[in-house]
């Protein structure tokens, strides 16, 4: 079993974190969300994470094309009222993917990197990965460059690509026509609100004319587009899962479909990221790339004779995830609100552990290319109570 080596640090204190805007530093049980340690990663391990993300993204694009061509929307659980939107967004480059986060097992102490899932639509852990873990290096007098963390810079660059629509962002200033960019979250969660405000801030630094509004303050007109305070916004980022829009606010799904089809606004992350987010894609990937070293065997049926993890297609934060032994008996499981979704079964893989037995899962951010990692520390299933642990590159 691979072991995680840790470096003890003094984590940034709450007052400093709150000043930054990172308000969710304490979990509901009163324990700190940030660990007082950093995971030691070697440069070649960081390099391998970087390469893995780039390769996986290309594979997701292939798999997305396969789903579109073969009309597999039902199979991967895309709600029927989003299928048009998914297709529409897939067909035109203006629907640029801003960022996502791969959750990965392994990658440490010689263990191979394995894809657990891809949070392509509404990834969080952005603030802690891009800002807080770097501040930890700085506040502890450590080498500020010893981290695989270009998340902020790569996001800024990728925002510019919404306009240049190519790798080079050189021509952003001459091409940007002043289209206004609205950023929204659902009211009531400081984490979501400030994750979105961080993204808004990065976009405004990239050169966009930006604004923030809670989604309940935003108005939608199928023929005219998206408005806030009677002002029209051509670009809208929403940290709201597409499947939630489809199921909880179906009228909004309908309005957005018209707005996008009428070229009145572009919505981010694009609807096709819901395909990537669906855990059924892990099965599609296994079909397309059987035995690929970055993948775990995944099926719509139980894996006979193999310990496996059963996950709902659109569960989040470990909700309704079960671990089954080789005989299909449930060893451990989380309750949750995602039980009604169809499930996939993914081969179980041991996560790297520290001396105390805590398990670590890497979160690899991707914004046009792999751009940084952070870790979650938890038990058998990473959930809402798992902790965030930064990293440092040594060796």
């Amino acid at each position, binding site marked *: 079993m691979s072991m995680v080596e840790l470096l003890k640090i003094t984590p940034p204190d709450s007052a400093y974190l709150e*000043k*930054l*805007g990172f308000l*969710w530093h304490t979990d*509901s049980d009163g324990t700190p969300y940030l660990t007082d340690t950093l995971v030691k990663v070697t*440069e070649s391990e*960081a*390099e391998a994470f*970087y390469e893995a993300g780039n390769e996986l993204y290309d594979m997701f694009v292939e798999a997305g094309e396969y789903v579109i061509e073969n009309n597999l929307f039902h199979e991967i659980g895309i709600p029927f009222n989003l299928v048009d939107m998914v297709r529409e967004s897939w067909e035109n480059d203006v629907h640029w993917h801003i960022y996502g986060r791969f959750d990965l097992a392994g990658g440490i102490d010689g263990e191979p990197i394995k894809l657990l899932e891809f949070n392509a639509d509404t*990834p969080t852990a952005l603030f802690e990965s891009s800002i807080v873990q770097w501040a930890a290096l*700085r506040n502890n007098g450590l080498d*500020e*460059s010893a*981290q*695989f963390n*270009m998340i*902020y*810079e790569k996001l*800024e660059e990728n925002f510019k690509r919404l306009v*240049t629509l190519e790798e080079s962002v*050189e*021509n952003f200033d001459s*091409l*940007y*026509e*002043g*289209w206004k960019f609205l950023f929204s979250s*659902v*009211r*009531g*969660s400081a*984490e*979501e609100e*400030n994750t979105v*405000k*961080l993204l808004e*801030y990065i976009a405004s630094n990239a*050169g966009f004319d930006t604004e923030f509004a*809670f*989604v*309940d*303050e*935003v*108005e*939608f*007109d*199928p023929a*005219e*587009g998206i*408005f806030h305070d009677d002002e*029209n916004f*051509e670009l809208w980022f929403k*940290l709201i899962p597409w499947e939630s829009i489809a199921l*909880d606010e179906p009228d909004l799904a309908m309005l957005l479909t018209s707005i996008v089809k009428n*070229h009145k606004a572009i919505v981010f992350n694009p609807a096709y990221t819901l395909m990537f*987010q669906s855990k059924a894609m892990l099965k599609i990937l296994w079909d397309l790339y059987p035995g690929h070293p970055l993948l775990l065997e995944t099926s719509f049926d139980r894996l006979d004779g193999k310990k496996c993890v059963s996950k709902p297609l659109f569960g*989040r*934060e470990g909700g309704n995830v079960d671990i089954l032994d080789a005989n299909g008996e449930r060893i451990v499981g989380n309750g949750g609100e995602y039980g009604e979704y169809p499930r996939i079964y993914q081969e179980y893989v041991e996560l790297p552990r520290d001396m105390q037995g805590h398990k670590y899962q890497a979160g690899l951010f991707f914004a046009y290319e792999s751009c940084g990692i952070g870790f979650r520390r938890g038990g058998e299933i990473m959930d*809402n109570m798992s902790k965030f642990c930064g990293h440092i*590159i040594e060796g």
Partner: protein
Amino acid sequence: MSYLKKVGRYGGSVGLGALLAVGLAGCQQRSDEGATASSVQRAQPAFVVIEEVAKGRYKIAEEFPAKETRIVLKKLDGTEKVMTKEELDYLIKKEAAKIEDGTSNLVKPEGAQVASQGGMGIGEAILASAAGAVLGSWIGSKLFGNPNYQSARKATYKNPSTYSRSVNSFGKKGASSTSSSKRGGFYRSSGSGGRSSARSGFYGG
């Protein structure tokens, strides 16, 4: 991996430096005050009809957003042809040289006047159209950043409504709408259900 060892990485990013110094809320106040936006043409594929209005003088008759850029030339004698890539490359290259030495009407102060009166040369009209940003992207700020360019391109449209219709169909709306078909208030009731300033961790996966 070069960027792993990029020393002083935050020295190069003003935005991130400011964020660490004054926090997100502090930065946001600042960026609200300082928010500006340039109004320059945006690259998006377009279907463009260019019409010859007098011998060798051209105006933009129609343009729409399209999957790929196509330019149709409507000649004085009424014939229409789709311009080939080679023709476009040749014309734009020629125009780029004129932009470079300042003789193109697109970058001359009197360009708008020339355009609105007799019409532009063919290369000028192509670059003034919505397709110009795509086809001429490599010319860069020398063209698109030139203040005379914006007024010249507006004047190259056959009539003002072609220009404003084009701007609208590319998604850019001038004034806010008073239409009553707007709907809002989504997620009004679902937001506050049990969430607090504590971590919701809801969308992380």
